[in-house]
């Protein structure tokens, strides 16, 4: 078999794979009931929707005091949810880190389970559930964001804890320290920077989530968004979306700046 034959055979194989791939996608489209005409015209429709309905953005609407107050509401929900969530998540992450967990059999699985469970459910679903339990308002939103933070922060922080240098921890433990001392002098100094970094990142993500959960009954900007979407006030909707984009970009820049500063300070 010379090179040419191998080349040809590989080409044929690739052709079969690629056509199979497209066939599967075709089947998926059939199954989901999407006609191709609609799929290929989607971008055009999107463009014309933006241009015709959303375009004259009603900026003054987002500068009204009512809306500005809702921005504050969102920030507060995000902040309080973050604080409570991080406190709970730190404990859970301590249990869910396989190398330093105090009880390998029970505590590890409990911690892991709660973190995975709160991560699996999207923040909007948490909001809907809490709204049915405690009613409309910022309390439901705060609780939903707490669950969101537990999942997000818990996962990142427990991974960080698992990467701790165990030699230092063992040294302290072999000198007769108890679990609390081991954590305070062996583990905490190693993860302190990462903790702050993850905390700031979680705040950023949490704020992003807090802008939208109002859509399902928690307070804040999302509530204004829902109202204007239902009233078909496109100009106001686009203004709100624009304001969310601006705020998110701002919070992202702030969190990136703070994380940079912290990493620089510790090095």
């Amino acid at each position, binding site marked *: 078999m010379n090179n040419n034959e191998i080349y040809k055979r590989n080409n044929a194989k690739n052709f079969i794979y690629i056509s199979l791939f497209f066939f599967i996608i075709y089947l998926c489209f059939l199954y*989901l009931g999407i006609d191709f005409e609609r799929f290929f015209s989607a971008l055009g429709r*999107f463009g014309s929707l933006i241009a015709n309905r959303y375009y004259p953005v009603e900026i003054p609407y987002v500068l009204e005091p009512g809306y500005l107050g809702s921005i504050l509401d969102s920030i507060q929900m995000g902040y309080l949810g973050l604080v409570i969530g991080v406190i709970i998540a730190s404990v859970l992450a301590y249990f869910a880190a396989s190398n330093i967990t105090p009880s390998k059999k029970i505590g590890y699985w409990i911690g892991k389970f709660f973190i995975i469970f709160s991560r699996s459910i999207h923040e909007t*679903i948490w909001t809907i559930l809490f709204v049915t339990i*405690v009613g409309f*308002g910022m*309390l439901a939103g705060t609780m939903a964001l707490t669950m969101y933070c537990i999942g997000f922060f818990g996962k990142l922080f427990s991974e960080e804890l698992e990467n701790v240098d165990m030699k230092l921890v063992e040294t302290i433990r072999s000198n007769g320290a108890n679990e609390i001392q081991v954590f305070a002098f062996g583990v905490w100094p190693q993860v302190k920077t990462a903790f702050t970094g993850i905390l700031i990142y979680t705040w950023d993500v949490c704020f992003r989530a807090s802008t939208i959960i109002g859509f399902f009954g928690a307070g804040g900007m999302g509530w204004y968004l829902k109202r204007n979407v239902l009233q078909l006030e496109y100009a106001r909707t686009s203004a709100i979306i624009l304001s969310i984009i601006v705020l998110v970009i701002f919070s992202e820049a702030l969190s990136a700046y703070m994380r940079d500063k912290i990493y620089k300070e510790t090095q």
Partner: protein
Amino acid sequence: MSGYQLTIDDYSKQNSSKILKKIIFYILLIIIIFLSVYFIIILDTDWHRIGSGASILKQLSYFIGLDLKIMPHLILPAFETFLMACLGTMLGLILSLPVAWLGAKNVTPLGAVSFGFARMLMTISRSVHEIIWALIFVGAVGLGALPGILALAFRSVGFISKIISENIEGADKKPIEAIKAAGGSGFDVMYYGIIPQILPTVIGTIIFEWDINIRRSAVMGLVGAGGLGLAFFRQMHMSNYPGVTTVILFIVGLIVIGEILSHYLRKKII
């Protein structure tokens, strides 16, 4: 620094001012906590509506239990959710290729103009929540799975193209120079010089994004796109709370399967 000596006194003074700043910072953070608690829990919450602890527990107890009857009707929506995530990620990858090409400093064709444009697209894609994307696309193309796919794709573009363009910027320059020296065109440089270098990371990123997209596609139904979100929405509106629990368990199951799959796939690639 000539003529200036830092004595121990100066040093301790600097240090103490730093500590003072830190303390003020922490006190501020705590004050904000109290303010938030005041606004949220005291001013905004209607405690009459919530009632006592017993009534909360009663409300919670509605959710305990499973509705076995709706289970067979959830398998197809679960599959739909899964497909939406797959197709959305794929479409997102296709859309993010040109954005990544424009957004990488070393290959962008028009310098600062195209670079800035691509960065702007990435930021907008990432900062608009998937629910808002879904709302916009439901308005544009109607109900069904299609707006969900488009929303997931548009939401994924930011992350995928950012990672790809960062990888392109960090790619090893030697093979690129070699291909250029041998007379290769821009396309040759891309195809033979850059893509083989960045492929493993990019595939890892796509799998990661696919994993997140499963989570996102489970809520697309809340605003009119299909899948498990729609089933959740229906059960919620019928006040069939055991059914709600069942749908949530389905979502969790789907996500756990996706997480295991993505973990396995990423391990295989790396």
